[in-house]
């Protein structure tokens, strides 16, 4: 129950985000102006992240049973909001010439961020569900956003329908699983499922395991872990690039935080069969993701498949949950994943627009000689995804390895090695394309006045990628302190 100003204060980021949504909505209602809406949203999101960052050291408070505002959630509020800001900035040139009403997109984006903020702060079924669905609901809209446009290149409708139906099924599983757990524990908050109180119903372990796994299955779907990954490439490909970016970064990160909190609080790893299933899922995701990407020619699909594999890597750290650094590993890797995925998509989206997306690797032939800067950024992102030193992706992978070693997950580490080995192939394929001699003139514009900010975003991301890859110590100590609260 919110009784005082003290209870409200920790909600400030959420409130600012909501206010942003409201202001944006009202502004659209009064007068449609693309630039204005975008500006409002971007400023609102920056403000949100700024406030969250300022609050981070001081705040650790449960607000009503629904939300926990601690350093960890605030850290991810910052991550999600900054990522969303970047997406918003990238969206601006992308949708600039869309022959449709463009302002609602920003509205959806803001609402989706609210969903993400709720998710990262939730330790309760209701808030988790509401946050998740708020995010998904906006994403349905964002994925299908350009469907009225005549020149819309891809298949936003198909992507959106697929996402909606499959996501609905997954939500069904999550909700049903929650109801089973609620029937067992009588509590809607995340709670320890191994405690005596939880087990007193003489339901046996299997009941708990089934309930847990149904929830996990639903979450795994949202994280596109194998065998629930089939939707990923189609949705990534069909969506407009900024929406894909958002889905791949904020959507995944927020969901993973929920999974982490859920697994940690419920002590799910105490059940051996759950650990086994997690391990199988991890191995399957790593192999399936990397194998699927192997001969793929579409960059969005490659990144989709690679995200499957990356989620598999992250799951290793979840499984290593008993260790001391697995939470840090997850946090660092998630951050790394957000940075590099955002970067990779940012570059594809800079050359694309809502009329024409350049997402085949053939389109990037010889980019290195045309625009070395852009292409070098892309190579950096890809190498980071592949986990090569000097990049944040390497430190992330280092963390995962460390947590795996600490918990002795040799089988999973071998899968990780094999997966990364396969992964190199398709990342390098793209790199190699860019290094080939220039063919006919470029099909796309690589610089426009409206893209200046997008280039700014890319530079910031490259900077972060290298900074966190070469001098990760400050970030590590921050993450060490925020992860300790979980």
């Amino acid at each position, binding site marked *: 129950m919110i009784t005082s100003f003290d209870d409200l204060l920790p909600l400030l980021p959420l409130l600012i985000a909501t206010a942003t949504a409201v202001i944006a909505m009202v502004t659209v209602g009064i007068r449609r102006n693309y630039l204005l809406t975008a500006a409002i949203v971007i400023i609102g999101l920056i403000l949100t992240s700024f406030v969250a960052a300022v609050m981070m050291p001081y705040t650790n408070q449960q607000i009503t049973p629904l939300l926990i505002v601690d350093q960890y959630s605030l850290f991810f509020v910052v991550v999600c909001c900054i990522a969303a800001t970047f997406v918003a900035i990238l969206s601006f040139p992308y949708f600039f010439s869309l022959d449709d009403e463009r302002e609602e997109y920003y509205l959806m984006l803001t609402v989706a961020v609210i969903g993400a903020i709720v998710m990262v702060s939730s330790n309760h079924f209701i808030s988790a569900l509401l946050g998740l669905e708020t995010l998904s609901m906006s994403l349905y809209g964002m994925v299908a956003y350009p469907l009225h446009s005549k020149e819309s290149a891809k298949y936003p409708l198909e992507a959106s329908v697929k996402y909606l139906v499959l996501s609905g099924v997954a939500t069904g599983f999550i909700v049903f699983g929650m109801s089973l757990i609620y029937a067992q524990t009588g509590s809607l908050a995340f709670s320890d499922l191994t405690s005596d109180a939880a087990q007193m119903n003489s339901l046996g372990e299997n009941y708990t395991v089934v309930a847990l796994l149904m929830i996990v299955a639903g979450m795994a779907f949202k994280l596109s872990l194998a065998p629930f990954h089939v939707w990923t490439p189609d949705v990534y490909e069909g969506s407009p690039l900024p929406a894909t970016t958002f889905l791949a970064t904020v959507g995944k990160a927020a969901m993973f935080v929920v999974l982490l909190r859920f697994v940690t609080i419920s002590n799910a790893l105490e059940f051996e069969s759950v650990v086994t299933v997690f391990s199988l899922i991890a191995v399957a995701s790593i192999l399936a993701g990397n*194998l699927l990407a192997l001969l793929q020619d579409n960059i969005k699909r490659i990144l989709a498949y690679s995200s499957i594999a990356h989620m598999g890597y992250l799951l290793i750290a979840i499984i290593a949950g008993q260790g001391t650094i697995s939470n840090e590993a997850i946090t660092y890797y998630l951050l790394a994943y957000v940075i590099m995925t955002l970067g990779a998509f940012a570059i594809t989206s800079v050359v694309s627009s809502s009329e024409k997306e350049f997402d085949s690797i053939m389109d990037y032939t010889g980019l290195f000689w045309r625009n070395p800067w852009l292409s070098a950024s892309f190579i950096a992102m890809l190498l980071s995804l592949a986990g090569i030193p000097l990049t944040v992706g390497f430190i992330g992978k280092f963390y995962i390895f460390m947590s795996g070693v600490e918990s002795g997950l040799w089988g999973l580490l071998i899968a990780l090695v094999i997966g990364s080995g396969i992964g190199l192939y398709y990342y390098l394929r793209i790199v190699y394309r860019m290094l080939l001699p220039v063919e006919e003139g470029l099909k796309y514009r690589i610089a426009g006045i409206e893209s200046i900010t997008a280039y700014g975003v890319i530079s910031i991301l490259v900077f972060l990628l290298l900074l966190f890859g070469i001098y990760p110590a400050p970030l590590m100590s921050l993450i060490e302190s925020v992860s300790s609260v979980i």
Partner: protein
Amino acid sequence: MLDLIWLLPTFPLLGFLSLVLTSGNLPKKAVAVIGAGSIGMSFLVAAIIAAQFIASGDDYFVIEVWTWMSVGEFSPGFAFYLDGLSLVMMLIISGVGFLIHLYSTGFMLDDPSYSRFFSYMNLFVASMLMLVLADNLVLLYLGWEGVGLCSYLLIGFWYENPANGYAARKAFITTRVGDTSMAIGLFLLFTQLGTLNIQDMLHAAETQWPVGSGLAVAASLLLLGGAVGKSAQLPLQTWLPDAMAGPTPISALIHAATMVTAGVYLIARTHILFELAPNVQLLVAWIGLITLLMAGFTAMTQHDIKRILAYSTVSQIGYMFLGLGVGAYSASVFHLMTHAFFKALLFLGAGTVILSLHHEHDIFKMGGKRKQLPIAFASFLIGSLALAAFPFTSGYFSKDEILIGALEMDGPGIWLWAGGVLGAFFTGIYSFRLVFVVFFGESKAHHDEKEVAGFSMATPLIILMVLALFGGLISIPVDSVFNHGGEHEEHHISALMHGIMIVVPLLGIGVSYLFYMSKTFSIENLMSSSLAKSLHKFWFSGWGMDALYQFLFVNPFLFLARINKNDLIDSFYSGIVALTRTANGLVARAQTGQLRWYVMTVIGGVVLIVCLGVLL
């Protein structure tokens, strides 16, 4: 002056370097001066050193120029060791070497690669001197490999013809087999005795190993492997006849006078080791004997003037091995020296013949060249007499000593002696077969050619003729090397035996005369039977050894190389790649794009993990 012994290999080395660095830009006259002059300087120094050494009366003299490498206990140096044996060797090498260089200045005059020729020759002499002067086995190995390399380079000197290249490679690789054996022997010696300094090593072996001990046998066998490779003895003798592909002075210098005797030198140098392994030493004798007989047979069947000489070289080195095997070391070294004289003479004579007759090698296309090629005739006559051990020529003394050594040996000595005498009979036949066929009888072709023999070519021939005739009178100062301890034994050989040894070569010459000069007997008759034909063919091919090795080693190697050109292991990795691709195909088939199938996989996945969760 003894301190300057390092100058010996240095002069030729400088000659080599200056010729290489100028890379063929010098005029031929300058090349000749540098090429032959450097060896001449060496010889001069060698002669002075020899005189001083003998005058000093010391047993040996050592000087280390610098430490080559020092790793733990292993510290071979660039150190030279001079005693009677190396003294003889260095004199032969620099002396005969100088004569052959001098001859070459004329012989090679028309060759466009004049400078290259002399650079290799100089390098050879430098290496060979290094070999014989080395005070440790590693340095000896340096020279050993160096002469092998020069041999390779010079056999393949006329590189346009692939056959020459083949012969060169064959020579190098065959000897390398022996070298490898020797290298392993070095490892063994160092591991067991802790040093590779020859004298220390021998001393240590003497004190540590009892006679007949396994280690001594192993070590001496491994060294023997090196020696038979270099000296073209069984079973590694096949390369030498092919090595005749090089220019004739090469054959004279490397494949007759010096390099091929390196094996003899090695065994003589390390004879203490061999004495510790009497069985191996006996094996040396038998190898020598069998080789000399086999080569003798083969020499009688050849047509190529140089190949006949090559087989005779193999055969003569067989004598030296025989001598080493029976303990007549100084006899062997003595034969080594005389052989150097008369075989160099024969080869250089053959060179004159070949050059005069426009590179004609087949003796049956010559005939009656006595008048046309007088100097060559004289060389051949004297050389062949010495070769056939005609009484009181140089070859007679040395061969006699070896045979006497064999006779003095207990046990199988008499058999070895008998074999050696039989070999001498063959020697008589094939050496004079050559003389009779080439210089007597009717002239069959090449009627008009004049003998090519300028001053530079004639002088060495004449000097060598003298040496071949009277070289047997030289006494070599090797007693201190071989007779450690015991007094020199007097020969107690019956007159009958002496008689046999004198008569048998003459008989050989006589037989040869009957067949090839007076035609009393006809070769054609002899060859009419099929057995004789196949025997002839068998001997002609060098007892089928080439074919055997081709079958045993070369073909399997080529076969293996051919079938595995693309690296089997690489296919393993290609297999992994193919597997990955197949896996990709399999998983990609799940991405149908059909929504209902997607739902199916999702629900199937839930069913799967729920079942797994319950069952596990």
